[in-house]
């Protein structure tokens, strides 16, 4: 029992240490952002590699989530004679929850791991030490542009995911299942509020982007410079980012709705 307690204390202390280190690292990144902003080419390159190169998986996932959402939604709503509200239900689910959350989880798996492994390999092959020896701070030159690129790319991908999801829901609900098209769009237009619904999704995706980007660059930068170390850092990136997204989603949802 005592051993278990000690282990729990040590584990918690480990998490606290990691949290503290990541916060200090965040301060270093934020201090390095002006340098990165003076070199927009570096940020654009990262928006391309984290955002544009993630488009295929985001578009396909959004589309299929929309299809399933319409199928399930129509099936359930028909029981209550409310099938015409399918457009509103699908859009609300996508813009408020599924868009930001699923995009963030996919983003952590696709772009987060790429960031962590790339920076980890740069550490393992002495590229970061080489920069330091050339009097160039790797946090400014490597980490900050990647962090900013990911923070910019994530909300854009979430918007694309939601748009593709709505398209999928329309295709399934209106074209295949036969829900009235006018009702589909009219209900959506009437029920989805820009500030309350769309923007809450955008805020969430910005926060998720921030969390995933920070954890990815932090794990990569602090990885042990071996093949195993980089592998572990990549795995930790996915696990920590996914958990962070889900926990933050609960906190943000409670805060945005105003009910806890």
């Amino acid at each position: 029992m005592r051993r278990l307690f000690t282990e729990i204390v040590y584990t918690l202390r480990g998490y606290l240490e990691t949290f503290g280190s990541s916060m200090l690292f965040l301060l270093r990144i934020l201090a390095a952002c002006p340098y990165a902003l003076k070199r927009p080419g570096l940020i654009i390159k990262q928006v391309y590699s984290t955002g544009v190169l993630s488009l295929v998986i985001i578009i396909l996932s959004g589309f299929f989530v929309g299809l399933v959402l319409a199928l399930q939604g129509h099936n359930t709503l028909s029981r209550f004679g409310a099938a015409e509200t399918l457009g509103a239900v699908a859009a609300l689910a996508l813009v408020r929850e599924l868009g930001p959350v699923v995009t963030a989880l996919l983003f952590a798996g696709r772009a987060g791991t790429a960031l962590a492994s790339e920076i980890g390999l740069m550490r393992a092959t002495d590229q970061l030490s080489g920069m330091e020896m050339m009097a160039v701070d790797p946090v400014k030159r490597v980490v900050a542009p990647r962090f900013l690129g990911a923070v910019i790319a994530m909300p854009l991908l979430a918007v694309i995911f939601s748009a593709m999801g709505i398209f999928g829901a329309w295709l399934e609900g209106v074209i295949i299942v036969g829900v009235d098209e006018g009702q589909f769009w009219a209900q959506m237009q009437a029920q989805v509020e820009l500030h309350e619904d769309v923007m809450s999704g955008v805020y969430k995706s910005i926060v998720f982007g921030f969390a995933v980007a920070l954890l990815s660059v932090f794990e990569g930068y602090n990885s042990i410079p071996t093949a195993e170390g980089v592998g572990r850092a990549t795995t930790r990136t996915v696990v920590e980012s996914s958990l962070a997204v889900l926990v933050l989603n609960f906190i943000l949802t409670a805060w945005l709705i105003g009910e806890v």
Partner: protein
Amino acid sequence: MSSSMEQTESKAAKPDEFIMVIEDLWYSRGQKKIFQGLNINIRRGEVTAIMGPSGTGKTTLLRLMTGQILPDRGRILIGGEDVTKMSRRELYRLRKRIGMLFQNGALLTDLSVYDNVAFPLREHTNLPERLVRHIVLTKLHAVGLRGAWQMSPSELSGGMARRVALARAMVMDPDIIFYDEPFVGLDPISMGVVVRLIRKLNDALGLTSIVVSHDVEEVSSIADRTFLISDGRVVASGTPEDMEQNVSAVVQQFMSGMADGPVPFHYPAPDYDEQILKRNES
């Protein structure tokens, strides 16, 4: 004996004769003591070799010299400035006058050969691109790779990557260049090229070169002075000729490449028979 020799040498020398002075350096990693009171004086304009068996901490010493890690105790002076007391900003200012060649070259894999060599210039100067191009091509020409300027690091052989890294290390016209095991993994032709380049560039550009290596023959052919490290201390120092004539058992073992001697072949282990029998019993 060697430390008293260094002190005499230090007193006899003019103050600015040494570009780097390491005084009473102590460093440990966990329980293992890597350096125990290391003293080294490096003369300006010379090629200085730091040699020693594997695991003696040669690369660690290089990292200490360049302020990448901090010692437990002692001073490391470069041009009179103590590296161990410097802030990050001061270290970066100093490193603009230092070049370093890593074991694997450490070229930035997302940049071409040309952009790798131009990297320090673009980061630290506001030179127009025409002048950057001129300097980069001059440095690449000096290492014989002007024709490879468009290639990416992944297309280069080990020897070529090392030469590109050398061009990058000297692009800011540094005062000192550190070489970390520059001959490891090179074929005889590439090794010969790198050996000659180190000497030639040192003399032509008036640099001070510090070469960390365990390749006795290659290093002895270009070094003006050699320091042999073992057990955390300098066990011998002098010109390559002095080292050859040194009768110390450690020096003789290292210079002649004998498998066993003061530096044992076997890592400390329990009795062989006892360990084998125990395993069989279990």
